[in-house]
């Protein structure tokens, strides 16, 4: 599903941030990526969503070689992925419904289909009764669930989440992780970047540990080892 071969990323001023990363994630896997601050986790995510280009190496997602795609193709790649970040990225002047619908509107989905698809997705994340709220009328946990709903709504094959629970308390964190697990059970590949030891240990799934831009540990049923 996702294949990174000899990935090197250098930033001017920061030198080598990712160093010869080789990583293979199969369809349907739930992979946690852990590592200390500055280890290169977010950089890895940016490479996966073609926000940044690697300095060397090849990245395959599905049938795409995303290291060579042009910028006009990037929107199509993004529509295959669900992306979730720590700082909730919602459009402030759109309602919950409109924020989720937006991901379908830009892909050209018909209004009739949008009306069919969005409500059940909002129901899954527990926001069935908050369609018309604006983001500033929601709690942090609720906002993050809207982001998840938006990343789910076009049925992506892969969900990439960079510290999705970083701003949340333990109850909200547990709920978000439950949702991600449920999505994974439906067959979606999940890549979760996290700092949260409890989350990782509780999941008992594959854990990839990064340190100084290198993979230092990769275990099938791993623990948070830092």
């Amino acid at each position, binding site marked *: 599903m996702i294949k990174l071969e000899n990935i090197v990323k250098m930033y001017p001023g920061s030198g080598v941030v990712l160093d010869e990363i080789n990583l293979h994630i199969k369809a349907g896997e739930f992979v946690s990526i852990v590592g200390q601050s500055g280890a290169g986790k977010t950089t890895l995510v*940016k490479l996966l*969503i073609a*926000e940044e280009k690697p300095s060397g190496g090849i990245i395959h997602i599905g049938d795409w070689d995303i290291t060579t795609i042009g910028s*006009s193709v*990037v*929107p*199509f*790649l*993004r*529509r295959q992925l669900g*992306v979730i*970040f720590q700082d909730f*990225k*919602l*459009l402030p*002047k*759109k309602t919950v419904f*409109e924020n989720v619908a*937006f*991901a379908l*509107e*830009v*892909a*050209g989905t*018909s*209004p009739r289909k949008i009306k069919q698809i969005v409500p059940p997705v909002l129901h899954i994340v527990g926001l069935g009764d908050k369609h018309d709220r604006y983001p500033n009328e929601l709690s942090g946990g609720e906002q993050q669930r809207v982001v998840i709903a*938006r*990343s789910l709504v*076009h049925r992506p094959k892969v969900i990439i989440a960079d510290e999705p629970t970083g701003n949340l308390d333990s109850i909200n964190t547990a709920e978000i992780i439950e949702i991600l697990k449920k999505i994974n059970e439906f067959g979606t590949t999940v890549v979760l970047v996290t700092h949260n030891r409890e989350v990782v240990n509780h999941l008992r799934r594959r854990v990839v540990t990064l340190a100084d831009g290198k993979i230092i540990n990769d275990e099938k049923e791993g623990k948070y080892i830092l």
Partner: protein
Amino acid sequence: MTVFGRIIKFALQDIFRNLGLSAMTVFILVLMLLSVNTLWSLDVVTREAVALTKDQVNMSLYLKSSTLDKEVVELTTFLHTVSEVTAVQVVDRAAVVESFKQRHQLSPDVIQALTELGGNPFGPTVVVKAKEPQDYEKIIAVLNVPEYTKLIESKSFDQHEEILGRIQTITNRVESVGLGLTAVFAVIAFLIIFNMIRVAIVTQRTEISIKRLVGANNWFIRGPYLIAAVIFTLVSIGITAVIVYSTVSWLDKYVGVLFQNGFSLTNYYASHMLYLFSLEAAAVLVLTVASSSLAMRRQLKV
């Protein structure tokens, strides 16, 4: 709904859900347009006033009654060769007497005295017009040769001298004030535009990055901003047109008194409106589109 329909929908949502910012943008654009139009009107009125006054200024050469017709022709021919002279008009003796009588219609003693004199005591008058008020000095200088001074009884220019001087200083002052105002407006316009661009960048950058994240292509990202820019332009031009029109028709009551030749700002605007406002619309559109394009430039790190 088509892509275009959605883009328009998003543009309208952006405008109405950010009503404060939209109103502010329109307000600033209207202010800018008003200052441009003020400057424009000021320029038109000044130019008209200066032209009118210059046109009214002339110099009369009152010739001696002994002057022969041949000498008058010689004098006018010479005047035509002076490059500063734009027009020469001869008022013959008969006409001079007529206008004298006309002027003194109500004073029977003067008319009486004229009749007692018998014959025509006046010589012809030559009216000279020059391009610029200061040219009269030169014309007087070239006429200052015995050949012509012996013909000329008196010149009316001496009485005009002061007025001409005053017009000159007023014109100069208006020009320098106008220039100063232009400079001030230019600086203000620049600051406003600069700030608009900064606000646009700050508010739009996060939104753009979000839209890219969910796979919106350039049409969905640029489109609404461009449509919004067009709408802001049209609305601010419309508001400005209404304000300018009502101000100008109010002002015309006063301007009309100053200009006896029927000059009217309303008419001026009516005949130049299309040109003026489409020029301004183009400028504002370039401005708004440029500012959102600048905000669009890819500094969009997620």
